[in-house]
């Protein structure tokens, strides 16, 4: 595990430290509302909540520029928000409304937003590895200095495509960062049942720089990500980062009875001992960056924003059926 971040957390400016907190809380609140919308049968289909993993999206995306690229996954709300998406347009998309990011055509698993460099969430596990690598290739070819981040769950280590992209990225020294969010489970199966050997060795296989770090410590994520993103930006090549994390909820909102695949005690342990928001909040207070009142204010403001965003989405119209065959071709 990296110790870069834990050793010198103070290198992160105060406003950034607060922003890391704010962004994590925003994702948490967003996802709680998604769950609620599902429970109230207001959301069509399903959604995969990012609760518990917020530090990764936030730590990584706060190290990116707006014009940098990301690709995301089925569990993508956190990445989209962390990269700068607006909650109102996201909720609208999740509810299938015309006002949504994708005019209701994409839904939870396909939120995309050129304005924030979001190349799109993806419902094919591992399916975006090529897209991220290609964006990095374009950045290099066009002599831009944009970096692309490919977020994926450890389940994507099962997809051959990922290895083809790791090889291409390393061979051509592309500015792409592969971020493996290892939350321990591929759906309802522990990753040790699906993954032979060491995860980091999968990057070593291609001689790719890599590091494994604590995905519940947002400062550590930010520090590690910053290091490799800047390295990539300078043309020094790609990296593979593994962050250890946990999803508190089910694989998707409908996955309620989970005891058959993971113990309640394990869930409790992460929720109570390793929550990235609690930990960072405590650290901010312990280090005199903010007091409880400041943190509470952050949360209160976000609650108001999120509730307004939900209301906007709920009251927003569905697309007219006649729009169904628009946007097939550019």
């Amino acid at each position, binding site marked *: 595990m990296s110790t870069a971040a834990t050793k010198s957390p103070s290198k992160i400016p105060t406003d950034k430290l607060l922003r890391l907190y704010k962004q994590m809380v925003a994702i948490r609140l967003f996802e709680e509302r998604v769950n609620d919308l599902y429970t109230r049968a207001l959301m*069509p*289909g*399903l959604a995969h909540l990012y609760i518990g993993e917020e530090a990764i999206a936030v730590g990584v995306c706060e190290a990116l520029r707006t014009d940098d690229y990301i690709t995301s996954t089925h569990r993508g709300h956190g990445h989209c928000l962390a990269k700068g998406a607006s909650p109102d347009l996201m909720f609208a998309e999740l509810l*299938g*409304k015309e006002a949504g990011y*994708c005019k*209701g*055509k*994409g*839904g*939870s*698993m*396909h939120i995309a937003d050129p304005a924030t460099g979001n190349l799109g969430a*993806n*419902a*094919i*596990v*591992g*399916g975006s590895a090529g897209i991220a690598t290609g964006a990095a290739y374009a950045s290099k070819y066009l002599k831009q200095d944009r970096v692309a981040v490919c977020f994926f769950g450890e*389940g*994507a*280590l*099962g*997809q*051959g495509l990922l290895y083809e992209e790791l090889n291409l990225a390393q061979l051509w020294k592309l500015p792409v960062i592969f971020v493996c969010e290892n939350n321990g489970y*591929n*759906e*309802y*199966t522990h990753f040790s*049942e*699906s*993954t032979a050997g060491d995860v980091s060795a999968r990057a070593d296989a291609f001689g790719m720089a890599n590091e494994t770090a604590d995905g519940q410590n947002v400062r550590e994520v930010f520090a590690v990500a910053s290091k490799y993103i800047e390295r990539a930006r300078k043309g020094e090549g790609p990296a593979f980062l593994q962050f250890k994390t946990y999803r508190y909820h089910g694989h998707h909102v409908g996955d309620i009875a989970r005891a*058959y*695949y993971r113990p309640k005690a394990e869930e409790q342990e992460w929720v109570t001992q390793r929550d990235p928001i609690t930990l960072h909040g405590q650290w901010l207070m312990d280090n005199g960056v903010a007091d409880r009142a400041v943190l509470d204010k952050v949360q209160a403001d976000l609650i108001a924003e999120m509730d307004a965003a939900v209301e906007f989405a709920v009251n927003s119209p*569905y*697309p*007219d*059926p006649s*729009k*169904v*065959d628009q946007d*097939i071709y550019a």
Partner: protein
Amino acid sequence: MPELATAVRELTFGEAIKEAIAEEMRRDPRVVLMGEDVAEAGTTFKVLVGLVDEFGKERIIDTPISEAGFTGLGVGAAMAGMRPIVDIMFGDFLMIIMDQVANQAAKIHYMSGGKWKVPLVIRATMGATRRSAAQHSQSLHAWPSHIPGLKVVVPSTPYDAKGLFKAAVREDNPVVIFEHKISYRKVKGHVPDEDYIIPLGVADVKREGTDITLIALSSMVQVALGAAKMLEEVGISAEVVDPRTTWPLDEKTLVESVKKTSRCIVIDEGYFRYGITGELASLIQEQAFFDLDGPVRRLGAMHVPIPFSPSLEDVTVPSERQVFDLARQMCNK
């Protein structure tokens, strides 16, 4: 309540498939099933819950998220004496395994001059309106149907699902079976509690009629039957014919029905263009042209990526009303 015991036993579509798999696994120890989260979770669709308790994790096998990997493994295992069933969850993931299915499994028997066999069953799903968007809602049965060397099964009822699935497991050739996701729980019907198979390549007349033939597959059989009821009310007698397998294809039953009724609509949930309906409409007009009252007509999924929003998604799939309207117009009533 002894009466209940003699009542007709009804199963859902999903239960029928589970029963087929269980029976075949009991019958033949070479049958194993592998896929993502098939064991304790009983698949994402919960269709196989409980099977692992009977057969153990050696025979109901959780895999990594490696559809191409375990399908390829299934091909080799089939050649080496087993009868594997591989489960790729969403039919959309066919796109990932197509080399193993269509370049390998489909061709090995032929390329080896008939020496090797590949008794492999590939379970895929199909069907939209689950609000799963463009990458989890497709009905891609046209693709494997285009490839010689494969057999392709698209059951529409629990009864057919059980009999066809059991036939597929006993086949010495690779078979792709498309299970309709919405039907898993929604479609119920009589399923005998006994060992029966339905040979691949035999169409079934799901409803007899005289004025128009509705050729429908998978989910569209229910739609066609619904439309047939509506048509009856306006005095049109519709025959509903279900090919049940796209390959082998029971051309004769299809053509004979159309020769009798002189009108035909082909209805399928796959994308409209270059798919199932094109082939079937085409061969019907080839073989029944001079008995036809007018052109064979087709209804397929709208030719668009499948949208997420309910207001959009619902209009992409052929409906009873559409079938009714078209049939009525064709019958001039």
